[in-house]
């Protein structure tokens, strides 16, 4: 019996995902797709169908995303911060807050937040993509290249 439990635990660690990211939750993919095509009302409708308690983290991150694309950066920051309170290791809200800082032209704070996100999950490709974008916007073209290359390296090494 002890052996069975031991092997089941080993199996669990092999199968579990190592970091929590919305990217791994394909059930919310369709809401992200609606935001991408600017169908905010539909996205909010889909969001309201989710169990608000069970999915507090997701609801806050997606609400933040919607607020961000609508240009309400204060509201976005509020939701991202709430999401971080629920899950301090979540990289999506850290990326979101970085984008808010970048939108407010506070590039240093944006970079700082993304570097924090890298410390939590150095393999998350999206962080390098967003960092590269921010660096490019602040005319650090070569550093942007390096960031993009790091993101791509993570992808090809993982593949």
């Amino acid at each position, binding site marked *: 019996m002890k*052996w069975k439990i031991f*092997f089941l635990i080993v199996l669990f660690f092999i199968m579990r995902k190592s970091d929590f990211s919305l*990217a791994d939750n394909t059930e*919310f993919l369709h809401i992200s797709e609606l935001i991408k095509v600017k169908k905010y009302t539909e996205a909010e409708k889909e969001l309201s169908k989710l169990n608000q308690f069970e999915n507090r983290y997701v609801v806050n991150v997606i609400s933040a995303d919607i607020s961000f694309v609508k240009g309400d950066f204060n509201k976005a920051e509020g939701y991202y911060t709430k999401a971080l309170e629920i899950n301090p290791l979540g990289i999506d809200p850290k990326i979101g807050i970085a984008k808010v800082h970048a939108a407010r032209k506070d590039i240093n704070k944006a970079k700082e937040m993304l570097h924090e996100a890298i410390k939590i999950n150095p393999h998350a490709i999206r962080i390098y993509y967003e960092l590269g974008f921010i660096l490019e916007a602040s005319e650090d073209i070569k550093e942007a*290249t390096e960031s*993009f290359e790091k993101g791509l390296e993570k992808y090809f090494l993982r593949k």
Partner: protein
Amino acid sequence: MRNKKTFLLIFFIFIILVPSVSGALRELHEGTKIEPFIVVSLSGKSFSYHQLSGKKGTLIFFWSTNTKNSTKALEILQEKYSVWKEKGLQILAINVEKQYFSEDDIKALKQSVDSKKITIPVLIDKGLILFDKFGVIALPSMVLIDDKMTIYKEISGFPLVGSQVFFDEVSIFLGEKKVTETKIAYKPAKQSLLAYQLGLRFEKKKDFERAVEMYEKAISVDSAFVLPYGRLFDIYINLNKISSVKNILSKADKSLLKKPLIMMNIGKVYFHENDLVNAKKILLKSIAEEEFVDVFIYLGFISYIEGNISETERLFLNAVSISNNSPEALNKIGRFYALKGNNLKANEYYKKALEEILKTKGR
């Protein structure tokens, strides 16, 4: 005790299988049997391969609306459809341009298909599972499958000469044309095929040493099987071991050197040795028969070095288009620009590559 042994055995078999469960056919090749699959129609209904396949065979056409050759090829297939269908060949036009189709995407696709009066069944590869399983490397791609679910013939891209040869092969397959000389689809030796597939698995795990071992084994068992050469050359070129590539080429049969895949790699060797004239010559020769993405990329490199920027962009766009915006193609082009010190252009391609990667990850 017996139960414990059984449990241990099952556990270890599972552990061995888990990493390879996601392994799939990485490249199209003749002679392999396909697994049954599910596709979705534009009306949202799911169909199995068996429900759709033709009596004599099935021609799977992988395509996207944003590659110009896809539209051209689809129209040509539409012209041949009714005749071929009567002879027992079903054509399935599987759209692979998105992982996830919204209602608007389906509407747009329906409109595009209806405007061209396409009656060939148009289907969607949800999640790009088939795209990955078949290892599609260029768009459009055509795969002719016989009634025993074995790949009879395949072609990547829609090259001028190669596509005509492919259609001739289909006609021969259906008995429309007679074979003037023996033209049987090449079936590699079983052991060679097995070694090649093992090589692909090792390559996927980045164990290049073992992958090379397996590909060399595949070649030693069946030296006429082209695909292991292709993978071997790719690994050596990426590791900058050009002399290893030249060594293999020097021992290869002369008839092999005329195969488009081998010609492409010879072109790459010339390029890496700075012999741009011969590189261009042989790459153009290979592209007439088969449109490999790398051929366009390397021709783009050559055009850039020659100072022909507009031609460079045209070739790179072609490569990106037929590769269906593959991150690999975009990354290769980005790296080239970065090496040449053109960081703005490099970033343009890197961003596109990352966007494609993130698209499939959802965020």
